[in-house]
C-alpha cells in the first residue's frame, strides 16, 4: 500500500466530516481506513477540540467539525498544497 502522510490522513478525515457532519462508516470509506483506526484519530481530534460527537434521533453517533476544526482544515489544505509544491509529498496523495 502507498505511504500516506499523517497530515493527509487527518485532512482526509476533516474533509469527510465536512460542514454537515458524518458517520464513522462514511469517514472510514472516504479516508480509506479501517473503522478502529479512524476512531483512534477521531478521539485525538475530539481531545484537541477539532471535532465533536453527537447522537442523532435514530441513536447514531455523528461527528461534526468545530470552528477550530474548520480553521485547521483550511490551514492543513494550505500546508498540503505547499508540501506538494515542494515535492515533499506525492502529487496524487491528496485530492480535495
Amino acid at each position: 500500500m502507498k505511504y500516506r502522510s499523517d497530515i493527509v490522513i487527518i485532512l482526509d478525515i476533516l474533509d469527510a466530516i465536512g460542514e454537515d457532519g458524518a458517520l464513522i462508516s462514511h469517514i472510514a470509506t472516504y479516508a480509506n481506513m479501517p473503522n478502529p483506526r479512524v476512531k483512534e484519530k477521531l478521539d485525538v481530534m475530539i481531545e484537541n477540540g477539532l471535532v465533536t460527537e453527537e447522537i442523532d434521533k435514530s441513536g447514531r453517533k455523528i461527528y461534526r467539525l468545530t470552528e477550530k476544526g474548520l480553521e485547521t482544515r483550511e490551514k492543513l489544505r494550505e500546508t498540503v498544497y505547499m508540501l506538494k509544491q515542494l515535492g515533499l509529498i506525492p502529487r496524487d496523495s491528496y485530492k480535495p
Partner: protein
Amino acid sequence: MVEINIWIITTSLGAGTILLYVQANVFSLFLKSYKVTRAPQLKNITYAFILFISSTLSMMAINTYLSIFATQFSIEELLLYRELSTTIYNIMFALGLFFLLISSTKSATDSILYTPLLLIPGTSHLQIAMDGNILELFSVYGRIASDTVIIVEASILLALYLTYSEKEVIMGKLWNIGIILIMFSRAIDLLPVKPYSEMFMIFMDMVAFILLYLMKKEAEIFTREER
C-alpha cells in the same frame, strides 16, 4: 578593504531582515499545522525552519555587533569574524535543509535516509580544524564542507521536486529556480571570490525564500477559491 567589509556587513543586515520576515511567515503556517496534527513530517519541517531562522539570527547578531564596534577591530579580525558569521550561517542552513529532506515521505521508503552520511565530510574537516588556529580553520574548512553539503542536499530536493510536485502550477516552478539559485551561490562560494560570494549567497537565499513566501500566498488563494 575596511569599507568593503562594512558595506558587506550592512547589506547582509538588510537582506537578513527581509529573510527573517519571510522565514518567520512561512514557519508560522507549518507550526500552526504541527500543533494540531503532531505529524512527524511537520515536526521535521518545523525543526528545519527553526534552524533557518536561527542561522539568519546568528548571522545578523554577529554582523550587528561588528557594525557597531567596527572601529575597535583590526582589518584581519573584521574579516575573520565576518567570514565566521557566514560559516555558522551556512552550517545551520545545511542542517535546516537536511531536516527538510528527511521530512519527505519518500524518506520513509528509500535512500534519503542515508543523507546523514553527507555530514561526515563536514565533521572530518572540523577535526582538522582542531589542530590549527581553530577559528580560522573552522571558518575555511567549515565553509567548504557546508557549501558542498548544501549543493548535494539541494540536488536531492530538486530531484524530489521533479519526481513529486505538480508541474502545472507556477510557484512550484519558481521554487525549483530558488533551489538552483541556492546551489549556484554555494558553487560560486567555493571559488576564490570572497567576500563578494558571501553577499551573493545571502541575496540568493533571500530570493529563494521570497519564492517560498509567494508559494504560501498562492496556497492561500488556491484554498480560498476551493471553498
